[in-house]
């Protein structure tokens, strides 16, 4: 037997090239992202400027003035309030509905699987298009939802056109699109729960409702928290649905951060204010996403441990 042939040549490789490998692998992705970070820096810079495109002669650094102005700006507080209300309501509604549906579908059966597949479909619909669909459905002339409302006795239900119901209408679209997302997460969580505690509780004769409160809910809580944070982060930045539905109206009823910033930029060409608004939104999401990531990492460890 020839030893030479069997022993591969002991090729040397420099330590440097080995330690560099992970950097080399992630470098292209990083470069692409750094390219995207540059405009972020620009936005910070703009937010510190008095910058209205229609008045170039007035442009200049005004440092924190754009931010300071927010304190006395009722529009800003309205935007903050609308964004938080929208995010809060959608998350709560979607959580409750999503949890309910997940509990309905918990048992693996043919019907349940079919229903969960059906529920994927709203989630796969672009939110902007979903808004358009609901716009058609709530049209006062022929919209089917308007018709149902008439049948139900609300002769003059104006959906997104009325300030009283506009928020409700966009929330309805949000709920339609995103409840399935929460449902899927919670269903995954429910189905991964260990069965022993439930069997033990059943043997002890613990009523099902109590099982739910004392076992299911606590064990599911990390999933619920993750799903809630995830949605909250998206929801507070809502743009597509509201822009496609009412562009922030009627009045200032739906002036959430990104819609306000968009209109500030494109219609008023007030770049400074627009950038400052977005920076505030970014700060909110940054704090939220930090909480989210910490919680999520814990959950991931758990999921991995159980796997």
């Amino acid at each position, binding site marked *: 037997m020839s030893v030479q042939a069997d022993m591969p040549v002991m090729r040397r490789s420099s330590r440097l090239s080995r330690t560099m490998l992970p950097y080399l692998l992630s470098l292209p992705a990083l470069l692409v992202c750094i390219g995207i970070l540059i405009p972020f820096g620009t936005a910070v810079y703009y937010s510190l400027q008095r910058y209205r495109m229609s008045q170039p002669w007035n442009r200049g650094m005004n440092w924190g003035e754009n931010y300071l102005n927010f304190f006395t700006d009722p529009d800003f507080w309205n935007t903050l309030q609308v964004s938080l209300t929208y995010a809060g309501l959608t998350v709560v509604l979607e959580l409750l509905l999503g949890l309910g549906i997940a509990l309905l579908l918990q048992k693996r059966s043919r019907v349940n699987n079919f229903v969960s597949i059906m529920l994927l479909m709203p989630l796969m619909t672009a939110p902007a298009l979903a808004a358009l669909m609901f716009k058609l459905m709530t049209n006062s002339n022929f919209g089917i939802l308007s018709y149902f409302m008439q049948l139900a006795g609300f002769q003059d239900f104006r959906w997104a056109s009325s300030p009283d119901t506009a928020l409700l209408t966009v929330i309805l679209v949000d709920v339609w699109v995103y409840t399935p997302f929460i449902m899927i997460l919670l269903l995954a969580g429910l189905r991964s729960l260990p069965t022993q505690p439930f069997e033990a509780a059943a043997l002890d004769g613990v009523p099902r409702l109590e099982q739910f409160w004392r076992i299911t809910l606590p064990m599911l809580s990390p999933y619920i928290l993750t799903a809630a944070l995830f949605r909250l982060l998206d929801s507070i930045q809502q743009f597509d649905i509201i*822009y496609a539905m009412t562009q922030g109206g009627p009045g200032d009823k739906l002036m959430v951060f990104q819609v306000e910033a968009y209109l500030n930029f494109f219609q008023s060409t007030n770049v400074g204010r627009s950038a400052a608004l977005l920076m505030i939104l970014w700060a909110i999401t940054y704090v939220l996403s930090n909480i989210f990531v910490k919680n999520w990492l814990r959950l991931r460890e758990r999921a991995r441990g159980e796997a």
Partner: protein
Amino acid sequence: MDHMSPLERILRAVALALVVLFFMFPIFWIVLMSLQTNETILRSPPSMAFVPTFKNYAAIIAGRLDSNVASMSIQFMGNLMNSVILSVGSVALALVLGVPAAYAFARHKFKGSEDIAFTLLSFRFAPPLLVLLPLTLYFQSLGLANTYVGLIWVYQLICLPLILWIVRGYFEDISPDIEHAYRIAGHGWFATFRKIALPLAGPGIAAAGLLAFIFAWNNFVFALVLASADKQPVTVGALAFVTASGIQYGQIAAAIVMSIAPTLLLALWAQKYLVEGLSLGAVKG
């Protein structure tokens, strides 16, 4: 759990039926609408009795709309094509960039890797306009305005973090020993990556890719802000359609149906991957 009273059984069935009704009805109704003429749509009260017509679809496919304002041509099929190019291109690029990076993050705990990974994830949560608005001012000088390349690059903002985080989770789930075994057997790192890591993370890559495709397809604000007329995807195109068609409701409905059909079909076809991707994307990473 199996012992359900008949009443509970019925209540559950009713609840389930309501859920399906709520979530499926809009899609069902929009499909019905797309098969009607303005005349039958505008009937009051609404009625299910109508002779279905494919006129609306024909008009959109032909790109010729005879509306009540004027007859005009519309590039909806072009929008559809743009959506395909942008989504496929973005996902392909995100996979090429993201999979190796995900591998690096999963396998090598190098200096700053967690920070970089978090930064990339935080893109997922940053307000898109924060980046997009300044970008409108840059795009021209970069020569990226009015190009697919520019848009595909910006779409990485959605696709890349998604791919990176889901695929990384899958790579981390592969026992390092399996890769060590292959290396020790005499294969180089690239062969190991290609023959072991990639195939084993395959389902994860598929799930992440599908999900990224759908997010890219459904994206609205990027194209709204940055895309020029001939590069606009269906999401923006369909909205613009409302004006352009001078309210031919059936045509709007047909346009919506055509815009959401690809993702819906994809969802039906690959629902297993999608569910996995969605739950892992959020929970597992």
